[in-house]
């Protein structure tokens, strides 16, 4: 293949400037809320202010308000839908299965009614006129309450949603024989994914029985299937168009109940209806991630070698999770030993329904396994008096491929190398000297490490993506893909891959995606998959197109396809005369002047490939942070942050670093600031972004990168990179804070480490 191109990759591996930037920087990006349909109406949703109550609803006054077209409650629209199921299609118990709450509300934010009016202001006016009689019931908000309470969700007979226990051979014996057993616990802060663009939809019933939906969706193809199935519609009568997405982080994979209510309203009114989530709604009803309590025990022999682990997780799925709770906990158990040589394990995984907002996917949804492991690893090192780096070094797997205790095979990773490179980059030995000196001056510096293997492009059931690459009449290349972008820069990176494969300039390649009518089904954006899966499809499809191009060029050049090359937008033959023909000439012949084609050749120059990736690809990383913690105020400042990442071939280093950085800062937020906290009555703490503390620029450290490259065995050699930063950033910061405050014997079992929790967790005064 390489000999068919003029040189080694020209664009892949370069920090090519993003093609997306022009429109975003000039205000011409187009997000769902920027679209206006003729005759469009606006929706607002009435949500429960109580965590659990029996309700009766009277919307008659609201319906009388001038400018209001309709107010729908459960009685008006729920029958239009099949009982709701998981967006991922996984089996298992599901929470609230109706679009609007019927006789009982199940969390603060539970949708009760939808008002449709000429504008959003009037729709919100209508909400105020809906009379709801709430008869409060005892709320079940926490995992401990869920364990001890009868079912809190209508239609379910128990709060337990999922349970799995296993003890692999030798695990009990390993714990019995251990010289030391170290156990750590942590309860996560609930994360609101908080993309800056809220969720949004415009549902437009077309009068021939079709439904056009503009949706801020990471995967319009899955949304199409879900909507059609829920409405009992023929799938190809539903078209989903997902335009520019203002961030998603997993949250926009689902098709939520408020979307379905909007669709129902548009169908009933036979008018386009827009609903845009506002931020109080996002915080209370937009789905939460990381609502889990974790525990890990590590059994060690006398030399500090890990013998076995016992992993426990309780997951709070809330009332209306987008997928069946529990699946994630299984994945956590499967991969929680990470990069360490741990031969056997036990696991206890449980998931519960509660009267809280349902769980949703959030950047590295299984991150809890890395969090609890890396925290416990540091605690174990302290317990046996070994340096945490040395402890990691001794227990890290060096022989690959490596089989995890539950059987998953991992290959093409480099954890020890990333550890050593991180240690070197941050200057570990020098830091310990600096730390000692600072302590003498009453300043508390600390260093933390986190080591992680990140499963990327997880595609157990197939998880294909398709690329359809064509040469236009002018010779320029257009590719339609099934992937998506929520800031991932795929319009640039996919063009880089195709440009290299087709020997053209990156600016001659245009990427399109996001419309389910324009291509077959695919996997969208999410799970660190685009570089691997869509990239693989684009790579292979381009190769197929190249063969077609050579075949056609050979006809015009009166030569054989073998020996032809693509360079500079032309097909060039070999030999001293080196005859050539431009892609423009070929594009015109193939698409317009089709009578010039060889007898029997199909017109057009298009190739399509549907790529099935391996079930798992693995990236890995080691992070290190230096923090300063103030034992007087409990404030933590991140002074340095080093990432050594192995994501295989980097399609675009600037894009890779952007993904890492965004993840790391979210990981820091998870560790220090972000939390939607519920009290025992099921009342959430944050109603606005004054109360939900997102990381800001002023607190973002400069991230120092080391890139290690172990290519994957997929077509691009890339591995995913979208989630690792968020996964390993959190324990890295936690460990650094513990190290900084070591003289105070800290103990923290709840994230985030707010100033309040930090002071409360210091068990000794300096």
């Amino acid at each position, binding site marked *: 293949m390489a000999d068919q191109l003029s040189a080694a990759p020209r664009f892949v591996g370069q920090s090519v400037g993003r093609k997306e930037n022009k429109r975003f920087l000039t205000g011409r990006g187009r997000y769902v809320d920027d679209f206006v349909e003729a005759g469009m109406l606006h929706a607002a949703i009435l949500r429960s202010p109580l965590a659990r109550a029996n309700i009766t609803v009277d919307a008659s006054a609201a319906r009388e308000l001038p400018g209001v077209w309709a107010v729908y409650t459960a009685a008006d629209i729920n029958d239009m839908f099949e009982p709701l199921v998981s967006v991922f299609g996984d089996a298992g118990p599901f929470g609230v299965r109706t679009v609007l709450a019927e006789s009982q509300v199940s969390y603060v934010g539970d949708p009760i009614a939808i008002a449709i009016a000429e504008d959003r202001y009037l729709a919100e006016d209508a909400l105020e006129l809906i009379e709801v009689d709430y008869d409060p019931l005892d709320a079940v908000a926490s995992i401990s309450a869920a364990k001890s309470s009868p079912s809190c969700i209508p239609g379910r007979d128990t709060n337990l949603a999922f349970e799995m226990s296993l003890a692999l051979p030798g695990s009990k014996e390993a714990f019995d024989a251990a010289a030391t057993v170290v156990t750590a616990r942590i309860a996560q802060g609930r994360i609101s994914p908080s993309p800056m663009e809220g969720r949004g939809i415009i549902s437009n019933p077309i009068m021939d029985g079709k439904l056009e939906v503009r949706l801020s969706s990471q995967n319009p193809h899955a949304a199409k299937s879900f909507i059609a199935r829920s409405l009992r519609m023929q799938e190809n009568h539903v078209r989903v168009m997902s335009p520019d997405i203002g961030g998603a982080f997993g949250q926009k994979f689902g098709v939520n109940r408020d979307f379905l209510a909007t669709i129902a309203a548009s169908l009933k009114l036979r008018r386009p209806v827009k609903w845009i989530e506002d931020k109080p709604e996002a915080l209370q009803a937009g789905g939460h991630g990381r609502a889990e309590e974790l525990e890990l025990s590590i059994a060690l022999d006398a030399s500090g070698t890990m013998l076995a682990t016992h992993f426990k997780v309780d997951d709070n799925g809330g009332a209306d999770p987008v997928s069946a709770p529990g699946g994630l906990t299984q994945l956590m158990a499967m991969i929680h030993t990470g990069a360490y040589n741990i031969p056997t394990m036990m696991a206890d995984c449980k998931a519960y329904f509660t009267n809280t907002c349902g769980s949703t996917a959030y950047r590295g949804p299984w991150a809890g396994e890395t969090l609890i492991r890396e925290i416990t690893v540091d605690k174990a090192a302290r317990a046996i008096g070994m340096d945490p780096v040395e402890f990691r070094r001794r227990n890290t797997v060096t022989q690959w491929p490596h089989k995890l205790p539950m059987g998953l095979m991992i290959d093409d990773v480099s954890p020890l190398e990333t550890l050593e490179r991180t240690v070197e980059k941050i200057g570990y030995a020098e830091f310990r000297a600096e730390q000692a000196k600072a302590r003498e001056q009453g300043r508390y510096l600390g260093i933390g490490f986190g080591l992680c293997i990140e499963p990327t492009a997880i595609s157990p059931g197939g998880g294909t993506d398709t690329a359809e690459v064509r040469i236009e009449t002018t010779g320029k290349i257009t590719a339609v893909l099934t992937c998506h972008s929520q800031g991932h820069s795929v319009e640039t990176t996919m063009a880089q891959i195709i440009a290299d494969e087709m020997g053209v300039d990156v600016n001659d390649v245009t990427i399109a995606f996001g419309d389910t009518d324009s291509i077959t089904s695919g996997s969208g954006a999410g799970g660190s998959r685009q570089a691997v899966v869509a990239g693989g499809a684009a790579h292979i499809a381009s190769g197929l197109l190249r063969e077609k191009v050579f075949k056609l060029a050979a006809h015009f050049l009166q030569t054989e396809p073998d020996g032809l090359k693509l360079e500079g937008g032309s097909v060039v033959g070999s030999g001293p005369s080196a005859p050539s023909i431009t892609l423009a000439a070929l594009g015109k012949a193939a698409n317009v002047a089709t009578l010039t084609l060889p007898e029997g050749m199909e017109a057009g120059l298009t190739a399509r490939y549907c790529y099935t990736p391996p079930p798992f690809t693995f990236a890995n990383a080691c992070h290190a942070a230096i923090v300063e913690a103030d034992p007087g105020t409990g404030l933590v400042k991140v002074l340095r942050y080093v990432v050594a990442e192995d994501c295989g071939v980097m399609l675009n280093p600037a894009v890779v670093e952007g993904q890492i950085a965004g993840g790391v800062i979210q990981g820091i937020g998870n560790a220090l600031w972000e939390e939607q906290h519920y009290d025992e009555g099921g009342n959430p703490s944050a109603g606005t*972004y004054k109360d939900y503390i997102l990381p800001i620029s002023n607190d973002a450290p400069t991230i120092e990168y080391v890139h290690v490259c172990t290519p994957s065995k997929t077509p691009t050699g890339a591995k995913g990179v979208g989630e690792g930063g968020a996964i390993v950033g959190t324990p890295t910061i936690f460990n650094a804070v513990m190290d900084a405050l070591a003289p105070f014997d800290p103990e923290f079992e709840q994230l985030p480490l707010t100033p309040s929790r930090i002071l409360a967790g210091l068990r000794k005064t300096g």
Partner: protein
Amino acid sequence: MSDHDISLTVNGRKVARRVPARRTLLDFLRSDLGLTGTHAGCEHGVCGACTVMIDGVAMRSCLTFAVQMDGHAVTTVEGVANEDGSFHPVQQALHDNHGLQCGFCTPGIVMSLLSLTEGEQKASREEVLDAMSGHICRCTGYQGLHKAIAQLTEATHG
């Protein structure tokens, strides 16, 4: 509820409309004028996505009513690029330094950077960095923004 006739200048052009008192400047720009580059983020003044310049000063359009803009001049992200469509140095700096990903917070950041680096008192690098507390970007981890600010303040301060 009262309605009001207003005339103002938006991106250098005169605009006259009748607006209900409660319409925010944000909704006025987006819905009445179709200037959808100004984004509705949090709508309560925290995230900064809706930042515009009012009489040359960066402010939140979600915390201002359209009716208050009678007689004033508003500049939005659509009014920033050069006449020929090429990038203004603020836009160029963000582009050069991978300062944006999903692009949703970007227009607000452009407006704050513009008001800080183009205004009468050119702000120092530290002042510009400090002013970024008024913008939330969930994608980039702020790395490219910091580099863009270094590039911009280098240019203005030599």
